[in-house]
């Protein structure tokens, strides 16, 4: 009898263990689902550091700016370079004070927000086309038509008449063109495919634009280093890489014909020039295929995104004004660190628009910056 009782007891223990663990499992699952709601507290914490997340393109510039700002004003900023899309979803979940993105938020991302957000242009970058043709010493000229043709797979040899016509006097080999693109979703891809969609109707209908697309041809390389590494070791390859990356690594890259018909080398100056155009009041503009005659056509802004109404969760006015002051410093004094890091400083037009947008941010309905 005793024996039975005891074994019954142990069965009971095991059973209760099973039930307890099931409860744990379920709560784990539901935590995963409702992460947005419970994660919101961190923004309102008394911790002094501001939190940001997003674009990896901005990371190097931000690190420099934030460390300089910390020296001058004693404000710490923690920035996670997790990618533009992830930055936006962290802002949506209110786990960060600001997000950073190489693309403006799309309709679906906008509708997921609890209140409207504003985009502040923070820096500009460009996408360069680097290639591997060991016997060609001159810098190649590429027209929008050629670039679209190559990436669609319709131009498949380097001595294609179209390429020869754009590069008179250059002896081009009959090597097959090997396209290299980014395999990871990225802002670089977004700028490049936005450009292609603008200059080629074929591209626009067949492929379209986005941070990841269905490439009709080519090898996918992971990250800038994956693309440039593949280009470097594959004869006849051409790929698109962030401008700062090709400049630092001294990889050959092409001049691209802009809307005005000029062949432009991607440089800091030509990217800043590309941004010196009419910018709409909300700053949501793509600089690709710019009207500026001396602007490099495959350029784009990177934005910092914040909520327009800064009073949410239990944020206080102090935190909100710290954030706004930081952002204001970034688009003014903070821009001096751009050229040495191969980022293009904001054009005067962009800074003016940025100022106006920052002034529109409110706390409890009242403007924060005077």
């Amino acid at each position, binding site marked *: 009898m*005793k*024996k039975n009782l*005891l*074994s019954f007891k*142990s069965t009971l*223990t*095991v059973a209760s*263990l*099973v039930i307890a*663990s*099931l409860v*744990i*499992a379920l709560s*784990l*699952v539901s935590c*995963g*689902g409702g992460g947005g709601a419970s994660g919101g507290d961190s923004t309102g914490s008394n911790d002094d550091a501001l939190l940001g997340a997003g674009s990896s393109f901005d990371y190097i510039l931000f690190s420099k700016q934030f460390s300089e700002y910390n020296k001058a004003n004693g404000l710490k900023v923690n920035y996670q370079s*997790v*990618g*533009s*899309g*992830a930055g*936006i979803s962290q802002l949506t979940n209110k786990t960060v004070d600001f997000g950073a993105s190489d*693309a403006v938020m*799309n309709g*679906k*991302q906008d509708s*997921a927000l609890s209140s409207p957000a504003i985009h502040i242009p923070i820096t500009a970058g460009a996408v360069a086309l680097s290639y591997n043709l060991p016997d060609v010493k001159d810098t190649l000229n590429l027209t929008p038509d050629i670039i679209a043709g190559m990436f669609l797979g319709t131009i498949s040899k380097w001595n294609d008449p179209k390429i020869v016509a754009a590069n008179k006097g250059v002896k081009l080999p009959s090597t*097959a063109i*090997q396209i290299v693109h980014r*395999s*990871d*979703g*990225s*802002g670089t891809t977004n700028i490049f495919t936005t450009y292609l969609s603008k200059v080629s109707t074929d591209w626009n209908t067949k*492929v*379209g*634009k*986005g*941070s*990841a*697309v*269905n*490439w009709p041809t*080519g*090898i*996918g*390389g*992971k990250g800038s280093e*994956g693309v440039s*590494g*593949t280009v470097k*070791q*594959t004869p006849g390859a051409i790929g698109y890489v962030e401008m700062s990356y090709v400049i630092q690594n001294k990889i050959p890259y092409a001049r691209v014909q802009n809307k005005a018909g000029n062949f432009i080398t991607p440089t800091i100056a030509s990217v800043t020039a590309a941004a010196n155009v009419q910018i709409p009041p909300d700053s949501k503009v793509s600089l690709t295929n710019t009207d500026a005659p001396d602007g490099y056509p495959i350029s784009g802004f990177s934005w910092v995104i914040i909520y327009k109404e800064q009073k949410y969760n239990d944020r206080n006015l102090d935190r909100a004004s710290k954030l706004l002051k930081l952002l204001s410093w970034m688009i003014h004094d903070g821009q001096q660190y751009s050229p040495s890091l191969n980022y293009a400083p904001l054009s005067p037009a962009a800074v003016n628009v940025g100022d106006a947008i920052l002034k529109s941010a409110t706390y409890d309905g009242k403007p924060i910056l005077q």
Partner: protein
Amino acid sequence: MDTSVKNGGITRSDLPLRVINSTPEGIAKAKNRIRRSFRQIRTETVFRQALVIIGLLMVILVMGILLTLVIKSMPSIKALGLKYLWGKTWDPVQDIYGAAPFLLGTLISSFLALVISVPFSLAIAIFLGEYYPKGWLPDFLKNAVELIAAVPSVIYGFWALAVLVPIVRTFESHIGVLAPIGQGIFASSLVLAVMIIPYAASLGRSMIQLVPSQLKEAAYGLGATRWEVIRSVVLPYTKSGLFAGILLSLGRALGETMAVTMVIGNTSLMPHSIFALGNTMASVIANEFSEADKPVYVSALIELGLVLFLVTVVINLIGKKIIDRFTND
């Protein structure tokens, strides 16, 4: 008196009856002994319960992962249905997602890697387990093989991109592949093969060392040569263990991400040969997750994880069946 262990535990009634001296010392001694026995029983129970809890936690973890994957991939399952599995187009712009190219890429690259690696891991296992179990050279080799498993996979990726891919490209142009790029499923299988060798080799080596020496000595006594002993004693005795090692390698190959993504070419087109570019499920998730900007897109990527999870489960179940068949023989 029956055995004192039932269902893995000791119960009070199983305590042996003893004749106790009626002197005070005798009683004290007996009491002490009984107290000690009860303490032993308690330790026994606590230990067993700890094991049960830890075991259950693992089960819960796996069930939790499965549940999360299913819940999070619901939007994609609702939007795309079953054709997700055999759809050939992966187009995030149009919100069309088909996992077939990646499913195929994962299976081809993993099984090819397995085919390439098995002869090597078997050879290493037999060499270290049977021929030279002791000595500085085997020790060195053993450590070297185990070190292979400790190298981070991104290092393999860069190594493959810088060293392996040019060699594969030369090889491809020699055998007349149409577009010798070097990257592709074949290159990724090669690097995977290197990465998974230690798993089958280590397990195989320990299994082979466990073969009772009487069996081998009997075979030698019957006049068998070393090759004959390995073929008809060692391998049959250890085959389920060897197979388990191979299964472990396969699981590793299916889930490997970094090294594969750096050399497989990452295209969403259907692979048409082993030299073609391709992509695997793990690699697509790693590449696209951080920038997936639409709910269905994110969900489709999570569903890819779910498919990978199920593929692994199915392969493991089949493997278990095969091992059972082996051991029943």
